[in-house]
């Protein structure tokens, strides 16, 4: 599904990723943990093609294609989805209209028919039940004035609507109450299929109780410094990062 080799990236004049390797198979769930500022969001941004992050080395293969050659929209159409750590507020653009445009762009790419407003409404209503989101939020501007939790639910809703094959969740659990956390996790689990993979970036073990990872990685100093099974997350929760990152970070 995803094969990252020796990935280096810089933003704002700083080298952030410094030779990162990560391989994910289809159907797998990988968790990436690591201290603040270690480069987790930068990794997510590189994978989704944020123009302000410059890739300076390494390669990323996604379903056998060179992912780095694709524009952000092409990646989305190919099934890459990033749930943003900080979703963007876009005044004046209706959430409904935005999601319909997004889905229709992806459907066009897949050779599927375009949905009209009625079809889309029906589809989105179904998905909204899954994330228990208030329909009123669909008629507001994208994320504008949404609470922290509402923004995250909106990300999960978009994921549910677009049905990506590689979902990257960047701290989707931050700012969620316990119920919302469970709902978000259910949204992710509902998406799971043998041909779809999930990359979960988180600081907390509790999300991983709901979305159980096959692998856990520790990112520090722009590299993966340790990988293990789900127990690694428990160990990190208990001991912190010091025992791994001492001497490992650049």
């Amino acid at each position, binding site marked *: 599904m995803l094969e990252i080799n020796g990935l280096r990236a810089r933003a704002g004049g700083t080298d952030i990723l410094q030779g990162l390797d990560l391989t994910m198979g289809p159907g797998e769930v990988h968790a990436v943990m690591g201290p603040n500022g270690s480069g987790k969001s930068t990794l997510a941004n590189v994978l989704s093609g944020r123009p*302000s992050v410059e890739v300076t080395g390494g390669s990323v293969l996604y379903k056998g294609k060179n992912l780095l050659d694709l524009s952000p*929209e092409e990646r989305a159409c190919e099934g890459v*989805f990033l749930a943003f750590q900080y979703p*963007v507020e876009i005044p004046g*653009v209706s959430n409904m209209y935005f999601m319909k445009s997004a889905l229709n762009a992806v459907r066009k790419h897949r050779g599927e028919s375009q949905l009209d407003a009625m079809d889309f409404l029906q589809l989105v209503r179904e998905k909204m039940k899954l994330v228990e989101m208030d329909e009123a939020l669909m008629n507001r501007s994208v994320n504008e004035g949404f609470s922290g939790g509402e923004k995250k639910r909106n990300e999960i809703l978009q994921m549910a609507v677009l049905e990506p094959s590689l979902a990257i969740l960047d701290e989707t659990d931050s700012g969620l109450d316990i119920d919302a956390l469970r709902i978000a996790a259910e949204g992710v689990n509902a998406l799971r299929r043998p041909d779809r993979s999930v990359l979960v970036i988180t600081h907390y073990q509790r999300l991983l109780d709901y979305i159980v990872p096959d692998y856990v990685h520790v990112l520090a100093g722009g590299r993966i410094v340790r990988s293990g099974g789900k127990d690694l997350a428990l160990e990190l929760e208990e001991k912190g990062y010091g025992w791994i990152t001492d001497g490992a970070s650049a």
Partner: protein
Amino acid sequence: MNPVEHWQERFAGIEPGAPWLAARRQKALDAFVEAGIPSTRVEEWRYTNPARIAKTAWEPAPVGPELDRAALEQISYPVFACSVFVFVNGRYAPALSTPPALGGHLGVSSLAADPSDENLEGRLASVGEAATPFANLNTAFFEDGAHVRIATGKHIEEPLHLVFVNAPGDDPIAAHPRVLIEAEPGSQATVIEDHVSLGAGSSFTNAVTEIVVGENAEVEWIKVQREDPTALHVSEMRARVARDGRLTAHTLSFGTALTRNDGRVRLDGAGAACAMNGLFVAGGDQLVDNHTWVDHAEPHGTSSELYKGILDGRARGVFNGRVVVRPDAQKSDASQQNRNLLLSRDAEIATQPQLEIRADDVKCSHGSTVGQLDQDSLFYLRSRGVPLDEARDLLMRGFVSEITRGLSVEALAERIDDLVVERLGMARDIPEEAR
């Protein structure tokens, strides 16, 4: 021949109408001749050079072509079923118009139909002073226009759609559309003043609109300027708002070679209010210049202005907002905002607020911003699969929604939204030689 002499000569050829009107025309022409064509050394015309208009020997617009309803629908969509009033090259076109059948509640008539109408005397050309020499030219030369009266206490639900079609021929033509709107006390109406072109060609529209808002009356005036991208367009709106009256003026300009709009509102009674909203979109080498002037003459008046511009290519925008609060106008509340989106490095905007506050107990605020499309928002949209061009369009629609939301006519608001994107595309496509 110099431009002033040119107009003097053409004046001999016009039909002056009733004696009172003839006298008024002569007075306006004299004022025009005396003032001459302003130079860019005059602050008011610093960015917009009137010589660009004056250098052409404009001929009075000839009688326009026959136009059918389908053609009209095409250029001025959406056309509302019940009350559309059409002028082609400045002359009333009865065959295309469906004057409202509302009995005495609403009167719409062609100014030319009965220019001796004593109803008009003392009313036409009575709202404020001409702001620019071009307004005097309009008074001297207008052939026709609309006179709208809304009777005391009557609320008109349907918008009234005035369409001014500019149909250029081989010669460069000038049309001088004229509108007078009188809302009697307690009445309410929406009037759309729509300026459109039928085909391209050298043309100059010089429009003047006077609005009288009676006590406790409410007028929404929506001016849409969507003529050919190569046209020249000058307009002036002058309004007087009586006690507790309210005027909402929308000035929506979609880019011509040169557009200059002057809007002057006098809050003439206690508690009078006005909102002036503007949208301007220009690309290529186009110029859009908006000058506003709100005169708080009486206490407890409220004015709010929001002008938003999108400029692409080498387009230039001007926003000059003057607010005067007179010594007696205590408890006035005035706000003014100008926000601009520059899509290219070569586009420019010149914003100038001019506040003259001569009362002490007032609230007054103003601000302006200039920015580009937000990169984080663009990336967010693209990361969901929305192609770059479409993402840009979406953000532009988002930017203008603050203006379109304020229009009470929903079908028009949707069309305006589309026009933003269409016109920016059109301006990009104008061939070099046509600029």
